[in-house]
């Protein structure tokens, strides 16, 4: 029987009531007395020298309160990259300054070089149009290979190259890997593109700043996945406002997918403007601004080689990748193609040799950073495509070649050839489950049926492993992270027994407001509806590194567990006093503190009340109140893994691909709320399918974003995706966090693209197109048709 409450139950998401009835409160819904509006003047060219900016007309326009240009921010800091990566030769990465507003040069279409603050948004827009900027357009670099050539136009003149770094992982394994590949009986080589994606959160970015001249306090309401991180970046690097004078609030946030992890210049601008004019300043991005300026995702060009024995035993993976970082380094942009990508390049496999080389490249395009999956989708796609290709070349069943090479259950903990220590897993069980879910036995009959209707049918499979629960601070510190990646929670038990839990994780679609109370209620033996989550406000929450990298439950949830344990321990002290027993004899189960071996007990609610009405309290032994805080720093990453299968039909006349079936078997360790987990997988699958079939970010040679609206950028819609079959019953609980959980937020987006592409190739091969061994994503009808007819 499924549980009806606590851990493992599936209560519907309490936050959905307000979201679905239009009562969510987003940044743009917050109206402050006397607020004004900011509008940005943005570059129309991808690369240009700013000769002059004349704001005199704009300043005279009706309603205009202030105009800013890059000149106003030359003395403040740049928005930094969060990880320092060193090149193979030991040189630190090139890290040009990312200013609040462009100064001297504009570096991508949409790069803001000025901002107007006015009484109304229309007035600000009118004035922004009246700014006269003389910008001398320079040739742009868009293509990464071209950007790395000698004499290429430079994105940042001062660093004299477009290469940010040239990173090797693991450099000491390079020679052995090269040697293994040279001597291997079979080598499969694949060149592929991991296509750039525009995040397209439903809610565009927005920021409202307020400044109190009486106290000198700033408040920033902003669309952030991690308000504390934003505060830290603004305080420590950009504006230097001390943390205790800056409150950052991220209210309801309508989707982030990574793009709202980062601090953006607009946030600093509205803060500076609010102080200057002494009134609140609001900015809300238009959809066009979102396309041009949100940090994009992916954008790798990769060559991968798989060396194996004739029987399919893997010998080595060698990868050379160019990773686009766009015009400026966004906060996680240097970690994503390196430590979130290279370290996963052994996949689920006991392969002895792995070497990864990543060159990060500046181009005159929007910055690229972590996007749902962040590095792991790129790793999974490269691995699982080349494995599929090798299986086909060697005539081995695509699941068998994977099974043959899996790390086996008795090998855990297992240190992969890419340097991570996988704590636990059972990949064979996932694949067994997958075959059943997709009805693999029935596939041939379905293929014949499709052929009768003039369609080609294909089945594609893949596995994945990812590293979540980001991340052990001591490990990431060694690897170049400039922050720690713990999280924090405070459990506040109020006098009448209800509970507020202040968490550092931020919920913007993940369902924390429902799932976290399940954990606390389960531990305390109380009704989960008496537990509320408080998140997204730096003035209310001890600290937090936010939500990304599928870390909320594994890291922040662990902090919640630790804080709740402290509450129980303190409750025991109080109960011991109330029951006149020794603390060591107090047991806590199902919401009752009892004296071991007796029938004497007192309920959790009574203990809470006593904590706040401490008449006859042993004050020398225990303080009044019942509130505890814990910081949790994980011991390792967590390693969700899964096996995915996709079945497609291809219309050979038009090249159109239709997904007929999709099955996802995931191991997320223990599951708190199975319904929420399924929902997270569904969303991730839609994004992965979007990447595989639809999402086609295209810059032309001049650096203009051709796909800058929904007229040209195809987002997955309901009828683009099938009814999914998802399962998370194969569970190997994480061995190093208290809940045994691994994280499920990104899996769907990580695991799905290769199975879609593998399925299409399988379909085309079955239709006699044996020369078609690869098509780059997105597999639009025209690309598939062209591949079939080339």
């Amino acid at each position, binding site marked *: 029987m499924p549980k009806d409450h606590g851990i493992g139950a599936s209560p519907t998401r309490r936050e959905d009531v307000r979201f679905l009835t239009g009562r969510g409160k987003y940044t743009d819904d917050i109206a402050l007395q006397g607020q004004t509006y900011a509008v940005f003047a943005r570059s129309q060219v991808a690369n240009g020298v700013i000769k002059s900016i004349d704001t005199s007309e704009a300043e005279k326009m009706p309603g205009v309160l202030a105009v800013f240009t890059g000149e106003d921010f030359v003395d403040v800091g740049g928005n930094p990259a969060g990880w320092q990566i060193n090149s193979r030769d030991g040189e630190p990465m090139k890290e040009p300054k990312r200013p609040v507003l462009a100064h001297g040069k504009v570096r991508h279409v949409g790069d803001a070089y000025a901002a107007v603050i006015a009484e109304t948004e*229309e007035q600000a827009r009118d004035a922004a149009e009246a700014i006269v900027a003389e910008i001398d357009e320079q040739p742009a670099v868009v293509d990464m290979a071209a950007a790395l050539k000698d004499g290429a136009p430079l994105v940042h003149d001062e660093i004299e190259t477009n290469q940010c770094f040239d990173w090797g992982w693991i450099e000491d394994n390079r020679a052995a890997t090269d040697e293994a590949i040279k001597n291997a009986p079979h080598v499969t080589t694949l060149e592929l593109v991991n296509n750039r994606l525009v995040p397209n959160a439903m809610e565009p970015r927005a920021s409202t700043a307020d400044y109190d001249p009486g106290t000198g306090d700033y408040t920033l309401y902003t669309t952030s996945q991690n308000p504390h991180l934003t505060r830290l970046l603004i305080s420590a690097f950009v504006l230097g406002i001390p943390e205790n004078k800056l409150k950052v609030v991220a209210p309801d946030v309508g989707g982030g997918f990574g793009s709202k992890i980062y601090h953006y210049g607009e946030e600093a601008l509205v803060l500076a403007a609010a102080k200057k004019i002494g009134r609140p300043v609001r900015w809300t991005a238009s959809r*066009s601004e979102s396309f041009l300026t949100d940090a994009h995702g992916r954008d790798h060009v990769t060559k991968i080689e798989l060396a194996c024995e004739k029987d399919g035993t893997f010998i080595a993976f060698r990868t050379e990748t160019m990773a686009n970082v766009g015009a400026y380094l966004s906060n996680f942009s240097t970690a994503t193609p390196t430590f979130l990508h290279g370290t996963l390049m052994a996949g689920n496999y006991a392969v002895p040799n792995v070497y990864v080389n990543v060159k990060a490249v500046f181009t005159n395009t929007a910055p690229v950073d972590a996007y749902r999956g962040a590095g792991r989708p790129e790793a999974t796609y490269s691995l699982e495509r080349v494995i599929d290709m090798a299986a086909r070349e060697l005539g081995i069943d695509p699941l068998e070649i994977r099974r043959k090479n899996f790390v086996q259950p008795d090998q855990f903990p297992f240190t992969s050839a890419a340097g991570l220590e996988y704590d636990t897993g059972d990949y064979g069980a996932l694949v067994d489950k997958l075959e059943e879910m997709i009805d693999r036995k029935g596939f041939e009959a379905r293929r014949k049926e499709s052929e009768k209707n003039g369609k080609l049918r294909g089945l594609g499979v893949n596995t994945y492993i990812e590293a979540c629960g980001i991340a052990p601070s001591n490990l990431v510190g060694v690897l170049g992270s400039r922050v720690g990646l713990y999280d924090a929670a405070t459990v506040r038990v109020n006098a009448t027994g209800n509970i507020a839990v202040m968490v550092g994780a931020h919920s913007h679609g993940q369902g924390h407001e429902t799932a976290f109370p399940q954990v606390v209620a389960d531990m305390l033996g109380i009704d989960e509806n008496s537990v509320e989550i408080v998140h997204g406000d730096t003035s209310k929450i001890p600290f937090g590194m936010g939500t990304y990298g599928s870390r909320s439950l594994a890291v922040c949830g662990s902090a919640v567990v630790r804080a709740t344990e402290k509450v129980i321990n303190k409750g025991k002290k109080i109960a011991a006093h109330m029951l006149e027993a020794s603390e060591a004899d107090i047991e806590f189960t199902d919401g009752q503190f009892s004296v071991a071996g007796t029938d004497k007990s007192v309920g959790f609610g009574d203990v809470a009340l006593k904590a706040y009405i401490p008449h006859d309290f042993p004050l020398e032994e225990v303080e009044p109140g019942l509130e505890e805080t814990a910081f949790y720093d994980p011991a390792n990453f967590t390693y969700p893994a899964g096996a995915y299968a996709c079945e497609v039909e291809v219309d050979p006349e038009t090249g159109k691909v239709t997904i007929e079936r999709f099955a996802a078997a995931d191991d997320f360790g223990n599951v708190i709320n199975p319904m929420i987990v399924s929902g997270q997988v569904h969303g991730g699958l839609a994004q992965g399918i979007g990447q595989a079939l639809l999402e*086609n970010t*295209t810059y032309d040679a001049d650096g203009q974003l051709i796909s800058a609206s929904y007229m040209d950028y195809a*987002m997955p819609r309901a009828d683009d995706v099938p009814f999914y079959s998802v399962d998370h019953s194969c569970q190997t609980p994480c061995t190093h966090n208290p809940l045994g959980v691994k994280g499920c937020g990104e899996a769907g987006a990580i695991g799905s693209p290769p199975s879609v592409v593998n399925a299409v190739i399988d379909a085309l091969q079955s239709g006699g197109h044996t020369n078609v061994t690869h098509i780059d994503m997105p597999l*639009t*009808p*025209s690309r598939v048709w062209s591949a079939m007819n080339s």
Partner: protein
Amino acid sequence: MYAFDIERPTRIADAVKLLSDSSESQPLGGGQTLIPTLKQRLAMPERLVSLTAIPEMQGVCKSDAGELCIGGATTHATVAAEAGDYPALAALAANIGDPAVRNRGTIGGSLANNDPSACYPAAALGSGATIITNAREIAADDYFQGMFTTALDEGEIITEVRFPVPEAANYQKFDQPASRFALTGVFVARFADGVRVAITGASEEGVFRWSEAEEALSKDFSADAIAGLSLSGDGMISDLHGSGDYRAHLAKVLTGRAVSAAG
């Protein structure tokens, strides 16, 4: 958006007068094309003259000659619901955009705009419809003059569109994956005196008739009849959604499918 005035006349004559008063006036149909253009500040009319409150321009009826007459401000949703006498046309309207677009967008607005990827131009040209304006009647063959270009004069409005009803017809639309306008769309209509084939979404010149296919299909109304024909990719739209050759190929495939579906 820049500020503008808006008028909602209830008679065609008043609308025409408002439009001729000032060259800065522009007709407003359902606003599904015009409003996004204004929001992006790509146009700045001083005055919009809404046509959707004019009863004479609303609804679907049948003429004595058996033609289907559709008011110029009739929404796609109304055509989808009420053009049952011309099922291929009703089906085309039912598949434009999404419900919001269909509940606002109008046939007159679509034909006046003449987007090279729009659906109605294929129906009008493929049916040999007559575009009726406040000033005159224009045969579809004379009306479409290239991408976003029509025979309409400044201030002239489409008050009605008259469709002869064919014996058999079908519209095949192959969606552009993002906009879901027609990446290529083909309207085939068989009349007693011959077959018309109109192709949208493909040519740089906008909607056009494929005369070789019409000839072949007039002799033998079957998909096989066009097997030996082909369209050239030259002059076809080439963009990130498909090359000219791909569109030319699609046009042929869709023509065959339309013929088979029309039966």
